[in-house]
């Protein structure tokens, strides 16, 4: 049994322009110690999927329109809010994209760390402070004993993100949801943060879902990858076969359109723009941009097994 098993998740938003099917039937599973890359462009539903797992989507305008999220066998969508709160930051932790806004500006870093420890581990006073210093040291903040009482604005972006990770790690979570944790950071800082997340999975057996648009990051960190497009997973594979022989035309298009540091081949861009989620086509969402499109694609979404590997594409299955 996997630690996290998401089955046919639907998350919708009701807006004045119509219902946005941000997540439209997503299934995947992640095991302890495993890092799953969840790749997609803006509007693909990758971040909403991640937020849905912790039930952090505001309802309304959001709505969990169906599916199950089994965490250690328990369906989080049915778990009462009071019990979920004991999971958040404890058994399941989250890191957000923007390190500038995700720390409370009017609380010392030490307080923000000890708060989590108090809440979930019952640690107080000196013990909590000591643990906070240990955590900062673990994430590579220099001179943690002196810096622990700093204010968030005294830290740079990279250091704040490391504090966020320290908070996330405070309770040794079983599952870490990372939403573009390095997008706002410089590449040399990104390398530090990614190492940290890898160590966490390896040493504590934490399962990680790494949401990102950067294929390079996924290649470096993930064990397996799910590619999202238009609210659905279009391809699911272990990391090596995904990059060596991508099956879905969107994945192939994405890989052919990213410039690489180690070569200078022609870029073949994916035509057109990402889909409008209020008016998804009845068939495959990628059909309007697909180089291999044929009649069947426009009529019916391609079949895709719940947890099988491969691509959601008629061509691939023919």
């Amino acid at each position, binding site marked *: 049994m996997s630690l996290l098993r998401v089955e046919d998740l639907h998350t919708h938003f009701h807006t004045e322009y119509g219902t946005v099917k941000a997540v439209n039937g997503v299934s995947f599973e992640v095991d302890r110690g495993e890092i799953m890359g969840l790749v997609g462009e803006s509007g693909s539903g990758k971040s909403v999927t991640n937020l849905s797992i912790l039930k952090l989507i505001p309802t309304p305008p959001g709505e969990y329109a169906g599916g199950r999220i089994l965490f250690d066998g328990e369906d989080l969508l049915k778990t009462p809010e009071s019990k979920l709160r004991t999971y958040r930051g404890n058994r399941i932790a989250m890191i957000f994209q923007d390190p500038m806004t995700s720390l409370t500006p009017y609380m010392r870093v030490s307080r923000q760390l000890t708060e989590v420890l108090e809440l979930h581990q019952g640690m107080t006073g000196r013990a909590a402070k000591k643990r906070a210093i240990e955590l900062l040291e673990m994430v590579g903040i220099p001179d943690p004993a002196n810096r622990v009482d700093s204010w968030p604005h005294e830290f740079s972006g990279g250091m704040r993100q490391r504090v966020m990770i320290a908070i996330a790690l405070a309770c040794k979570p079983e599952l870490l949801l990372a939403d573009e944790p390095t997008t706002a950071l410089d590449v040399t800082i990104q390398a530090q943060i990614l190492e940290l997340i890898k160590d966490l999975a390896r040493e504590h057996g934490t399962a990680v879902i790494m949401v990102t648009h950067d294929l390079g990051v996924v290649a470096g960190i993930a064990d397996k990858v799910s590619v999202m497009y238009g609210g659905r997973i279009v391809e699911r594979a272990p990391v090596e076969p995904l990059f060596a022989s991508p099956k879905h035309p969107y994945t192939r298009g994405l890989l052919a*359109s990213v410039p690489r540091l180690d070569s200078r081949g022609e870029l073949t861009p994916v035509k057109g723009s990402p889909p409008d989620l209020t008016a998804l086509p009845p068939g495959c969402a990628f059909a309007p941009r697909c180089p291999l499109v044929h009649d069947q694609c426009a009529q019916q979404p391609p079949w895709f097994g719940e947890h099988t590997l491969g691509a959601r594409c008629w061509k691939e299955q023919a």
Partner: protein
Amino acid sequence: MSDPLLTVRGLKVHFPVYSKGWFPRQSGAVKAVDGLDLTVHRGEVLGLVGESGCGKSTTGRALLRLVPLTAGEVVFDGVDLAKLKGEELRRMRRRMQMIFQDPYASLNPRMTVGDIIAEPLGAHDLVPAGERQKKAQELMERCGLDPAFVRRYPHEFSGGQRQRIGIARALASDPDFIVCDEPISALDVSIQAQILNLLQSLARERNLSYVFIAHDLSAVRHISDRIAVMYLGRIVETGTYAEICDNPRHPYTQALVSAIPVPDPVIERRRKRIVLQGDVPSPLKPPSGCPFHTRCPAVRDQRCSTEAPRLRELDGRQVSCHFAEDIGDLTGRTAS
């Protein structure tokens, strides 16, 4: 390619920092660009890379004199822009343009696309008023936009399309030189390649020179003939794209190149990273000597912390490191 279009010598851009109060006084300066030399040849794409806060965007703006220059000269086609004033400078702007990072913020939301693209034509009286919209439509077509949308407003376009509008505007006055300030970093992955290809084909077709500013070395390698790497307001290394990306010599360039992920898990697993410690120092108080010595994995002796290295020739490229000959490859790779 030996004909230089733009030569920059000893460029400094310091932003004064003011004390608070009724009539503020200057209390210090952010040294965003601090002694920079650069040459761009006709028809050449020069990539300018560095991390946030290294001064690359300020450099781009200084090349067009959009920020006040503290010292140095920027010679564009024989004219020192630093000496131009008011109307002379404004006239010069016809020949040098800019493409911005944020396609949402760089277009006036209250103007139609046609008026936006045609604005340079009016500012320099290049085309009679009655023909400007038609010219705007031609430019839209060239940049991959439907010319029927000439009366629409920016908010009715997607991010990629807006960036095309920004490019069409930059082309309108038929410039020789364009500063592209992170033109793809705000766009979706699948759109980035569209814009990169468009910029590349325009450069070839019109013999344009670009300074292409980005933090993403992969994209810079793709489009640039030469690359300059910046750290704390100075150039630490320049060379051809292959020299910089495949065989970097300056320790900072080496760290930067090693940190950039490659979309290939097999290569990723074999790569060695140089993980830099700490953060970039503040440009308000840059370190003495070599600006990189506080984080340098190959820092040697006192010389690094006391004497600032000059940009000097080394095997056909330029490096500013006292010990560039000796440090070799810090990832432990053997040179291939």
